[in-house]
């Protein structure tokens, strides 16, 4: 009989199925939806405080984001002609259903506001529509985190408390960054961009710390590289945004525009990195089996979940040992690459104490 303590799998095959969602369609939507949501808020408040250029940028960014998002999502469907089936029901247990009912009115209202902006017709209608879109804006920025977390994908599900804040920060940085490209008084956009960048950086760090067994996926391989890139771009972008407010004239505006590009690039890289980390943990059965096996053993032994056995400090349950994946034909085997910690087959440098108890406990 196979000893319990070792990790086993069925020929190294995945246990759960990784999402069939297309790249870039879905991670691009994650980024665009968040940026659009913040932009709608910026546009509406700029409207109410008499900042014309900022209002314009906000409204156009909201509509552009919404349109490209819808296009990407429809393209991603297996049966695109049936995209309207998304509005057949409103189902609270399905973040995709709830999200469709957020995105559809958001897109419509953003469209009205942008149309009014473009034509100059019915500014009062445009203002009301803009406020309506802004009311949906915050929901646009965070429901996508629930969308990812409400799956069996370990990297996403185990981070379900932190992901909404990562996405919120990322969306604020992106939307604020877009506003920085406008002329005139962009101080509110600057504040939003910098606050968003800080939230994004802090929340991502907290996510990586608290996500338990899936931490390796976020900190190594392609996802690790993407998230490092995102961190760098966001940091430099926040610095440039701050500097843009302090340096006068043309150079200040140039710094602001550089900041806009860096913050948006960083926000997009964050989404792509998180998406990629999810794919990695879905494909490698270790990420599914080890935390679940640890839970089963803990229940059997009556031990509080997550605590190491003091009699056996080198218990193999401490930390994740993802095994090298069998290369599938034609596929990029990122999970089996050397991650700088000596490769995935060995115990990666990570939390020596194993998973955070909260992640393995109920709720």
């Amino acid at each position, binding site marked *: 009989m196979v000893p319990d303590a070792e990790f086993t799998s069925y020929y190294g095959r995945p*246990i759960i199925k990784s999402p069939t969602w297309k790249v870039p369609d879905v991670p691009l939507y994650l980024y665009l939806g968040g940026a659009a949501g913040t932009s709608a808020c910026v546009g509406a408040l700029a409207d109410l405080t008499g900042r014309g250029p900022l209002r314009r940028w906000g409204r156009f960014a909201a509509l552009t984001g919404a349109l490209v998002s819808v296009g990407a999502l429809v393209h991603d469907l297996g*049966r695109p002609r049936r995209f309207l*089936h998304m509005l057949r029901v409103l189902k609270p*247990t399905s973040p*995709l*259903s709830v999200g469709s009912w957020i995105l559809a009115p958001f897109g419509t209202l953003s469209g009205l506001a942008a149309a009014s902006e473009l034509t100059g017709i019915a500014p009062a209608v445009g203002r009301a529509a803009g406020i309506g879109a802004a009311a949906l804006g*915050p929901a646009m920025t965070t429901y996508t985190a*629930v969308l990812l977390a409400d*799956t069996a994908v370990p990297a996403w599900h185990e981070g379900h408390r932190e992901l909404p804040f990562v996405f919120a920060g990322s969306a604020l940085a992106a939307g604020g960054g877009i506003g920085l490209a406008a002329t005139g008084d962009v101080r509110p956009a600057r504040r939003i961009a910098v606050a968003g960048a800080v939230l994004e950086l802090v929340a991502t760090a907290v996510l990586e710390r608290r996500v338990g067994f899936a931490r390796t996926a976020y900190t190594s391989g392609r996802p690790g590289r993407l998230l490092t890139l995102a961190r760098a771009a966001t940091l430099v972008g926040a610095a440039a945004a701050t500097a843009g407010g302090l340096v006068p004239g043309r150079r200040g505006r140039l710094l602001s525009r550089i900041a806009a590009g860096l913050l948006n690039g960083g926000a997009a890289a964050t989404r792509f990195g998180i998406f990629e980390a999810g794919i990695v943990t879905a494909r490698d059965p270790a990420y599914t*089996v080890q935390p679940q096996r640890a839970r089963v053993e803990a229940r059997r032994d009556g031990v509080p979940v997550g605590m190491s056995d003091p009699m056996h400090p080198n218990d193999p349950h401490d930390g994740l040992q993802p095994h090298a994946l069998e290369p599938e034909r034609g596929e990029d085997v990122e999970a089996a690459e050397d991650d700088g910690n000596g490769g995935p087959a060995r115990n990666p440098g990570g939390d020596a104490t194993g998973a955070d108890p909260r992640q393995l406990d109920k709720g």
Partner: protein
Amino acid sequence: MGNSWYGPLADPSGNAGYAADHPPRVGFFTDTSVCIGCKACEVACKEWNALPADGPHHDQPDLLDLTATSYDNTGALGASTYRHVAFIEQTRPRAAAATVDLGMPLPAGDATEVRWLMASDVCKHCTHAACLDVCPTGALIRTEHGTVLVQDDICNGCGYCIPACPYGVIDQRKGSREEGGGGAFKCTMCHDRLGAGLQPACATACPTESIQFGPLDELRDRAARRVETLHRSGVPEARLYGHDPDDGVGGDGAFFLLLDEPEVYGLPPDPVVTTRDLPSMWRHAAAAALTVAATVAAAFLGGRR
């Protein structure tokens, strides 16, 4: 919320809105200790449901999709494979095996023997089915028999059910629109046969009655007795999997008798329906959304002209 999303739920069909006179909940008990690996279940399932070959999904031009994993050439459940027979060859110490004393001298030291585990995997038709919970179009439904079904004419292929399933069952079928591709497919428990009073194709074809079909309560009783019998006969490693209404998915409509840990067969050791944590997820998302709103508002209030 009650037990609609998590926890023991005796009558999922009633909970889904069917009238009280709906048929009793039916399911599968797959006793892998008598499986002979003949794959009659795979063939019968493919024939009855007119399923296409698995080819395109495995990116394999060759129709003989040899996986080099013993006799398993389907690899896993998928959009065109609703019954998957797994083969595991194990070498284990001889002492662990049930032995009958024939009066012959036993080899000393670490003698080993080889055993073959064979199991026919299928959709678990969970009491709390994550695929059903996350489906945004309402294509996935609970039937009057307690099973989980994809309505192919509604499914728009969004693919959300696929990463939601904790067992990795449901999948998206590749292929053109004319071929019916793009949608999500999984075992229907031969819903069309149930309506006609027949058993599912796999249960009908199984020559050893490894796959047993019937009312779920009856199957659970039968399974408990079977495990007891095996334990008495010197097979202590026999255990049930997916039978317990207190487990993370509320118990499965299709449960198993296994001869080793679940992960050996490619099954998750402790599956939990993702919906269990959904209230917490929405709460955290709401808090984060409020953070966004507050940040934007504060940014504008700070510098008001």
